[in-house]
């Protein structure tokens, strides 16, 4: 398993090139090209703000930015996950031509997803001023939260990359799970708006490892508060998923070449 990490680290230049060129290839044919990196999250945000803020008349004054930071972070997870499912099967030609650590394929998708997060964050920054977010020293927690999420995503994507290679149906399943997870996680709402009982809150936060993480993002970026203690649930799950993912991928890597 440590071996696996070493192998990837040795080929980090390849990983970086994959990321760079894949991003280039994705934007190349589009008229607006690079601008889509900013437009995508913005348009998504507008849809939800209109839906929740105006049509349902809920959400409060800071709703757009609260939603935005949660949306960005959730999108990083989901886009990485759906990319990882086909990450191996979509590179058959390459895999059959040359030996390289296959973990680079799902990983490059995760890094591309992180760049999308960053582009989104660039849009968020001016909005933070417009909607009067409170800046405190708690913003320093942001890199920690991102790291937890990264570890979590890597573990999950390594697992899904293997299973997705064997089971083409997984991409449909993942699309469903992502949709379900979106409504079950505090993205369009904050936990305290929905659940009032303390016991239920605890139950909810413990059962959804992403909940604590997403609430913490909102706390540190917008509310100027420290992360919730439930972020630790996310961190613990992240570590477990990471170890399992790494183990599982390492064990199956050599079989993948023949499965495609």
């Amino acid at each position, binding site marked *: 398993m440590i071996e696996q990490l070493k192998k990837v680290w040795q080929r980090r*230049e*390849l990983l970086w*090139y*994959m990321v760079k*060129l*894949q991003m*280039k*290839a*994705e934007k*190349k*044919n589009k008229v607006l090209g690079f601008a889509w990196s900013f437009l995508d999250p913005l348009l998504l945000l507008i849809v939800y703000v209109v839906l929740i803020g105006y049509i349902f008349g809920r959400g409060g004054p800071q709703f757009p930015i609260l939603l935005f930071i949660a949306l960005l972070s959730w999108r990083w997870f989901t886009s990485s996950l759906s990319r990882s499912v086909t990450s191996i099967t979509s590179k*058959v*030609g*390459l*895999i*059959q*031509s*040359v*030996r*390289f650590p296959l973990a680079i394929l799902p990983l490059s998708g995760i890094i591309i997803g992180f760049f999308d997060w960053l582009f989104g964050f660039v849009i968020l920054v001016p909005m933070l001023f417009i909607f009067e977010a409170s800046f405190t020293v708690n913003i320093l927690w942001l890199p920690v939260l991102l790291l937890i999420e990264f570890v979590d995503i890597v573990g999950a994507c390594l697992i899904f990359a293997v*299973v997705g290679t*064997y*089971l*083409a*149906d997984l991409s449909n399943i993942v699309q469903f799970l992502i949709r379900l997870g979106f409504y079950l996680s505090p993205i369009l709402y904050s936990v305290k708006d929905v659940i009032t009982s303390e016991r239920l809150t605890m139950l909810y936060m413990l059962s959804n490892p992403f909940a604590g993480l997403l609430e913490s993002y909102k706390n540190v970026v917008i509310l100027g508060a420290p992360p919730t203690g439930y972020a630790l649930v996310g961190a613990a799950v992240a570590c477990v998923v990471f170890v399992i993912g790494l183990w599982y991928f390492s064990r199956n890597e*050599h079989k993948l*070449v*023949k*499965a495609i």
Partner: protein
Amino acid sequence: MINVSDLGIKFRMEKRRRSRALDFFGEKFGNRQRPSGEFWALRHVSFTVERGETIGIIGRNGSGKSTLLRVIAGVYPPDEGQVSVEGEVSTLFGLGTGFNQELSGRDNIYLNGIIIGLAKNQIDGIIDSIIEFTELSDFIEMPVRTYSTGMRARLGFAIAIHSDKDIVLIDEIMNAGDAAFRQKADAEMDRIMGERTVLLVSHAMSTIEKFASKVIWLDRGVIAAMGEPGEVIEQYLAASKVKKRPPDEY
């Protein structure tokens, strides 16, 4: 420098991947109706290649030629036997399967160079001669999906031949180009012959005869014959001939 002994590569035959997914989730659940179809793409294959030799590999479609190259490239670990390869392998980009279709030829040169383990500044050093060799000129900035088969072959061959790796694997790319490309490719082959170890898969017997010092004839995954190019090629051609019915049967 390359030592292959009793190599066997096994694949499972299945109509779709689903059954594989089942037995992948656990021998207990999936194994009951496990399809019996296993086949050996290569079996009992043994040979050695010395430094600087050029080996021609011939055989019918599906006889295991490309699989053998992939084993040498380190893509497939052997299911049986041993393979030891000393020296670095330049990848085979047979007809551009490893190219990213959306990216330009130039970007693909970088991508493929990095994949086979060249550093960026090494590629900077050879990219001009690669582009010159391919004669793609302005096309080098166009996406690879717009290239003709010949253009892809040229690009693949140019990358394989310009990377200074010890072992060069060439899978049927020499014969895809036009006459001018073939001449250039032949000249390049002459240049690197003796210097580097080359494994050459081809259906063009003239190419094999011209360059190979030894020929391996693969037939359904086993070595049918190996040795002097002239002899092996003759045997192979004799065996592939469509048998004609004798006249008295008419």
